[in-house]
């Protein structure tokens, strides 16, 4: 029976066990053996399913039954090879585990957490970085962005003119295509829906390497004027809006006021996510490049994808684009002077904002796994010490040391096999948590599942950890076959030098590993809180935002648009709890921001050389926008009713551009000229407002000039509604007021300012939360581990301490003796941990916002915290040592 992907986890686990252990079964009967076990498990599963809804007990029962296959397989092997030992070892190991249920459960639990965490994070790494992308030859595909030479990481969209220049000059790319963001409104459903999407130039899907699931993609002739309208839709839109009916291909659908023929549906996995939107692209239509777009090198809003030409590497392509960028910068200094092209491989683009943190996360998880191994090793060691006499006896009657090593290894393999099962359960839960946490950040995470590869990874992890955990105790014990051990049985004197060294190494390792993680988490938390406290330039409480696009049949003229906005504003004011209703063209942190920038000059000043001409973002707003957002007015006045369409054109400038153009002076009443969509306008400055952050809190503020909506009509605007109470609760009421005026107008991205800011922080929060959880786990493991191992080590010294007390040692001296030895170990661990943190600094530095990876406060703070807690963990066993009764201690053999 095959190993279906869609089978439930329990069944997959059980069948996976059979698959794993069939190797033990002699080859001649292996096939029959597998068939028999699979048939029983599947029969059990389907009869359970038929009878009732399965609860966890039923699932556990099925898994428990399948574990019998291990014993069965081992038995069969023994029959065929007469290798009784393995079977006996397994049985013996199970008996040993059974004899100490608490210790065994603890060991399994600790390892399960370590293995489960590693598998869960590995699944993210696997999905985003390792697994083959479904795009054809995905490693030859890249996205290309414009970026300022000084901030190459802050990538922006591409101005249409720049893309067209690239396309005509590049030889490194076989196909280069652009997506011009657009939206279509679908009114056939219960509520008007806005579909985000793109008009795409020729070869867009070819460049990405995607073939439609249904239908076809655009033909070359569909990119020319005068053709009937065609569109392709995403799998999601097909399911959500058109009920997933296969007949959709060829259907004519009314969007806005025009009919499009749906010619193709894209595959389910296709989330190019080019527009950095919280909501993804759902519809595409052919782009017909307009004449004016060839000259538009200023507004950067297209998205570009490209496929490398055969035999061209990524670096060559980068070099070529860099050369082209320099040429363009010389040819068009006013728009492209400081711009360069940033090539981002498709895989990195798709992994999005958690691409860089993944390595840190993976490192953190491996540290936790190592800690778990250290803990289990110390448990095994404690157990091994108990059994020293047994081993010595076995060695004395002729067991080879290989035989003894194997016995111990089999025990740890059995232990870690059990832990592996637990670990898969932990991983399953963690993956579910990732999916719900991370999907808004990285759409690809929705494809995260626990698949057979991960089960294999978990098995490999547990085998490796079994060896790591078991080898040392095994070798240690195998060396005990001397007469001394038999006579002493270990518990008498100070314990052998070797064992004490092992204890020391474990304590030092636990402290060091935990400290590296704690420092990492500390830095991330510090960075996150610093960032969350950054002032975005506006008061963010109780503001609702709703974006609309007033275009189309009903909004042909500016007057129609203005009437609509005036009426809706009045209506929204009637909603109880609404205080201010502003409108703005570029909403900070908004998903579909309209960012327009242009040149700016102060009237009466000589024109600076072309490359030094300042530019600014240009935003259309009403006066209430500033009041609703709580943006401070620094000088002059806001826009008011006096700023009529026929009055003097006015502007507000933010203090950033004011400082640049009028250092130390007063811009109010100065006249400026700005290039608004290619036309120069003269404006009188009436006030200065505070500067804002737009994309995210970790990006710099920007120069911005505001023009009043009354004088600069605009169709794409966001309502900014300040409310007395919870803004989110009023959104439905606000929305219905807008629909009272126009029932067919879709409202895009209704949200609150608070949510928008939180969303911009979500990727960092995801990573910070995860690392914090892992660090917390590490802290717990280390504390428990140190406590456990020192308790063991002190117990081993009972007799020695007894002698010391018998010859006059005071409790105080004993306490000092035991504590100072532990303190030394902890100090060594702390130093190593700090060195480890410094080594990891470069890895984590990329994730930090205005926090140094060697931040002294974080380093000393976490080191002190861990050191203190570790000392407390030492104190308890040390304290116990002082209560040893010398007489009974000496009597212990």
């Amino acid at each position, binding site marked *: 029976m095959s190993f279906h992907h869609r089978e439930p986890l329990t069944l997959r686990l059980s069948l996976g066990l059979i698959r794993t252990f069939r190797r033990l079964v002699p080859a001649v009967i292996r096939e029959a053996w597998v068939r028999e076990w699979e048939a029983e498990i599947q029969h059990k599963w389907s009869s359970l399913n038929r009878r009732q809804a399965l609860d966890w007990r039923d699932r556990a029962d099925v898994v428990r039954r399948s574990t019998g296959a291990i014993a*069965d397989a081992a038995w069969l092997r023994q029959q065929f090879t007469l290798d009784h030992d393995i079977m006996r070892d397994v049985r013996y190991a199970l008996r040993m585990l059974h004899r100490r249920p608490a210790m065994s459960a603890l060991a399994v639990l600790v390892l399960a957490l370590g293995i489960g965490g590693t598998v869960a994070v590995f699944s993210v790494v696997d999905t985003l970085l390792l697994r083959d992308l479904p795009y054809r030859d995905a490693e030859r595909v890249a996205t290309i962005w414009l970026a300022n030479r000084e901030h190459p990481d802050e990538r922006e969209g591409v101005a249409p003119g720049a893309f067209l220049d690239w396309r005509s000059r590049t030889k490194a790319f076989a196909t280069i295509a652009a997506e011009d963001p657009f939206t279509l409104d679908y009114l056939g459903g219960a509520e008007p829906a806005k579909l985000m999407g793109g008009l795409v130039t020729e070869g867009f899907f070819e460049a990405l390497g995607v073939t439609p699931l249904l239908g076809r993609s655009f033909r070359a002739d569909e990119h020319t004027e005068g053709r009937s309208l065609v569109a392709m839709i995403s799998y999601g839109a097909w399911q959500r809006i058109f009920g997933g009916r296969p007949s959709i291909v060829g259907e004519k659908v009314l969007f806005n006021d025009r009919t499009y023929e749906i010619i193709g549906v894209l595959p389910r996995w296709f989330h190019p996510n080019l527009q950095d939107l919280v909501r993804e692209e759902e519809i595409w239509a052919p782009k017909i490049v307009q004449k004016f777009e060839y000259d538009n090198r200023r507004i950067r809003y297209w998205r570009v994808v490209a496929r490398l030409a055969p035999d061209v590497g990524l670096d060559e392509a980068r070099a070529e684009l860099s050369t082209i960028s320099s040429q363009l910068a010389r040819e068009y200094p006013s728009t492209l002077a400081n711009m360069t092209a940033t090539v981002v491989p498709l895989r990195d683009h798709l992994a999005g904002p958690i691409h860089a943190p993944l390595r840190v996360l993976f490192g953190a998880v491996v540290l936790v796994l190592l800690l778990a191994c250290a803990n289990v090793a110390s448990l095994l060691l404690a157990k091994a010490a108990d059994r020293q006499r047994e081993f010595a006896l076995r060695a004395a009657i002729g067991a080879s040391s290989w035989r003894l090593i194997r016995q111990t290894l089999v025990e740890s393999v059995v232990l870690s096999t059990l832990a592996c099962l637990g670990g898969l359960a932990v991983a399953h839960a963690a993956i579910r948590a990732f999916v719900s946490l991370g999907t808004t950040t990285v759409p690809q995470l929705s494809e995260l599942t626990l698949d057979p590869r991960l089960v294999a990874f978990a098995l490999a992890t547990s085998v490796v950890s079994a060896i790591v955990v078991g080898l040392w105790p095994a070798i240690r014990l195998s060396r005990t076959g001397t007469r001394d051990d038999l006579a002493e049985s270990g518990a008498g004197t100070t314990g052998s030098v070797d064992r004490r060294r092992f204890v020391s190494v474990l304590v030092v390792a636990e402290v060091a590993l935990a400290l590296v993680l704690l420092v990492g988490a500390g830095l991330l938390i510090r960075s996150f809180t610093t960032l969350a406290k950054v002032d975005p330039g506006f008061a963010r409480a109780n503001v609702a935002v709703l974006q609309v696009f007033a275009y189309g049949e009903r909004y042909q003229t500016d007057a129609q648009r203005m009437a609509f906005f005036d009426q809706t504003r009045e209506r929204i004011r009637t909603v109880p709890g609404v205080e201010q209703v502003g409108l703005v063209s570029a909403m900070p942190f908004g998903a579909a921001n309209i960012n327009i920038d242009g040149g700016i000059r102060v009237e009466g000043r000589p024109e600076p050389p072309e490359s030094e001409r300042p530019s600014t973002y240009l935003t259309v707003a009403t006066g209430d926008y500033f009041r609703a957002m709580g943006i401070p007015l620094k000088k002059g006045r806001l826009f008011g009713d006096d700023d009529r369409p026929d009055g003097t054109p006015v502007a507000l400038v933010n203090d950033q551009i004011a400082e640049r153009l009028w250092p130390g002076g007063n811009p109010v009443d100065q006249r400026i000229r700005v290039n608004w969509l290619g036309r120069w306008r003269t404006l009188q400055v009436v006030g200065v407002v505070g500067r804002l952050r737009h994309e995210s809190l970790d990006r710099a503020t920007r120069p911005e000039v505001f023009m009043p909506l009354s004088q600069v009509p605009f169709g794409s605007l966001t309502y900014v509604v300040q409310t007395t109470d919870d803004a989110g609760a009023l959104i439905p009421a606000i929305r219905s007021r807008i629909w009272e005026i126009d029932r067919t107008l879709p409202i895009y991205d209704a949200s609150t300012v608070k949510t928008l800011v939180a969303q911009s922080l979500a990727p960092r929060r995801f990573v910070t939360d995860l690392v914090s959880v892992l660090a917390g786990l590490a802290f717990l493991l280390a504390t428990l581990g140190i406590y456990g191992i020192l308790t063991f080590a002190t117990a081993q010294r009972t007799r020695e301490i007894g002698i010391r007390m018998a010859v006059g040692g005071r409790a105080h001296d004993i306490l000092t003796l035991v504590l100072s030895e532990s303190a030394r170990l902890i100090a060594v661990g702390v130093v190593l941990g700090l060195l480890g943190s410094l080594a990891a600094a470069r890895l984590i530095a990329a994730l930090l916002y205005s926090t140094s990876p060697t931040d002294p406060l974080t380093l000393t703070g976490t080191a002190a915290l861990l050191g203190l807690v570790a000392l407390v963990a030492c104190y308890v066993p040390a304290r116990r040592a002082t209560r040893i009764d010398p007489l009974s201690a000496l009597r212990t053999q």
Partner: protein
Amino acid sequence: MRTTYSTVLVLEALSHGYHYGFDIMDATNLPSGTVYPILRRLEREDMVTSEWEAEGVAQTEQRPPRRYYELTAAGRKALADAADRYRAPRGARALRPARHSRG
């Protein structure tokens, strides 16, 4: 051959019409890691024979055919001898004839 208590339970279950590994587990309350080695040993000693169930049944349930086990005359005799020795083992009393025999 050793007839341990567990072996007797398995023989008893077989005689009551439990023919499949997992069903025998349920009937005897023994873990699968014990039941299977016992079955294999009994088969080697010719106290039990095994065959695959009919393909048709398996196909309707979309799984491989199950393997069913049956007592031989030697098995019945071994059970009778052992029952004398153990005097109505506790587990055996709880056994009821299975509802369906082979598939």
